[in-house]
């Protein structure tokens, strides 16, 4: 209930959204899927901005020249079920999308909403970070593109400038041998993650040439374990290096107790799940 909302606007393109946000400032509340906004109780909000009516390509999923373009208004369920996307990094973004909440939630939540309003436990941002996605932003000034590392260097709401919005996300598909995997570890199927891990591996013949190990649910935003990646790069993917990478990821994890698990358990799970996810990404890569 946004008790003082007087009006709901339906801008037709990102430029219009930006103009409304410039005008209304903190009186405006963006509605995408609505799952977060509907729980807001802010008496200062008077203008609702439903951005899901923006024209294509904001809700499109296309690819061109080895790059996938994901519009901000794609619903999470569309990602989960997209046949083309299942070929990208072995479908890890589909797996991450399928990990979100339950079916009615996935039907509502948008990619943009999920990426920007990221919660500690959000699943797709972890995959996007591992996949080294790019984030195209539109604001009052010129459009700009941020790397995933930059976009998740702190909470995206603090990265976005006033009146700036996320328009789309781009994911490049490497040409060489590569593999990816996403794994959510939670207590029940419809639960928030205890640990999320997404891993992308690039290979030069059978030597790992590049690795991105992203970890979610341990900090406010997903993060990359650079130490884990370092344990993999320049080596063949085998038990010893994988175990070393998993240990490194655990050592790099800084987390705290929360309502779902204690700190120590969660850190231990980082090691287990990182190991399993690297193994799976490696297995996936062998088939390419």
């Amino acid at each position: 209930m946004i008790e003082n909302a007087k009006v709901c606007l339906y801008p037709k393109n990102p430029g219009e959204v930006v103009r409304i946000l410039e005008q209304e400032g903190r009186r405006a509340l963006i509605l995408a899927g609505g799952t977060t906004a509907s729980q807001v109780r802010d008496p200062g909000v008077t203008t609702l901005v439903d951005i899901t009516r923006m024209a294509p390509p904001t809700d499109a999923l296309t690819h061109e020249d080895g790059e996938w373009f994901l519009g901000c208004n794609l619903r999470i369920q569309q990602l989960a079920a997209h046949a083309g996307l299942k070929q990208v990094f072995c479908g890890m973004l589909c797996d991450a999308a399928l990990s979100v909440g339950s079916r009615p939630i996935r039907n509502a939540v948008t990619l943009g909403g999920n990426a920007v309003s990221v919660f500690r436990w959000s699943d797709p941002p972890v995959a996007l970070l591992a996949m080294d996605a790019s984030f195209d932003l539109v604001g009052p000034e010129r459009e700009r593109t941020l790397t995933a590392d930059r976009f998740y260097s702190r909470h995206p709401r603090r990265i976005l400038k006033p009146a700036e919005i996320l328009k789309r996300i781009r994911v490049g598909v490497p040409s060489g041998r590569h593999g990816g995997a996403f794994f959510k570890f939670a207590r029940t199927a419809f639960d928030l993650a205890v640990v999320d891990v997404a891993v992308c591996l690039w290979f030069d013949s059978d030597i790992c040439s590049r690795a991105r190990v992203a970890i979610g649910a341990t900090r406010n935003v997903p993060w990359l374990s650079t130490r884990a990646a370092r344990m993999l790069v320049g080596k063949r993917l085998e038990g010893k290096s994988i175990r070393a990478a998993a240990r490194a990821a655990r050592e790099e994890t800084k987390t705290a107790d929360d309502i779902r698990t204690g700190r120590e358990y969660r850190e231990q799970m980082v090691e287990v799940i990182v190991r399993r996810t690297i193994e799976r990404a490696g297995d996936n890569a062998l088939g390419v």
Partner: protein
Amino acid sequence: MDIHVNINGQAVAWRANPGENLLDVLRREGFASVKRGCNQGDCGACTILVDGTAQRACLLLAGQAEGRSLVTVEALGTPAEPHVLQQAVVEHGAVQCGFCTPGMLLSAKALLDENPSPTYADVCAALDGNLCRCTGYKKIIEAVLDASGRLRK
């Protein structure tokens, strides 16, 4: 403001605060089949179809419904002509208290509209947002699978 929606095939305009939860608006407008079980998007008792997809009415604001097509269980079948899904849940003993049933049926309908031949796992995935404390889900899943078979014929 006025919210224009198509509800169960009828074009209507509702006087509502755009910031109200859609669940409250629907119940006020007499769609009693849309149940309030948690008001936080966790239980699924308020599931409705929005442009054909199952969503939580309690997680939508009234303003978001503008121009959308909404379906509630009131439109699924009538006493004289119940929907095959309704027939199936009755015959399989899949209705106990019945409080989760409307939401469950709409999730199931959205599934069958999209995938007429779901597997057991497909049904579980499609109903994973509808909590039921009475049945243990087994008979509900069996009823949906049975209904899909009957609809294919």
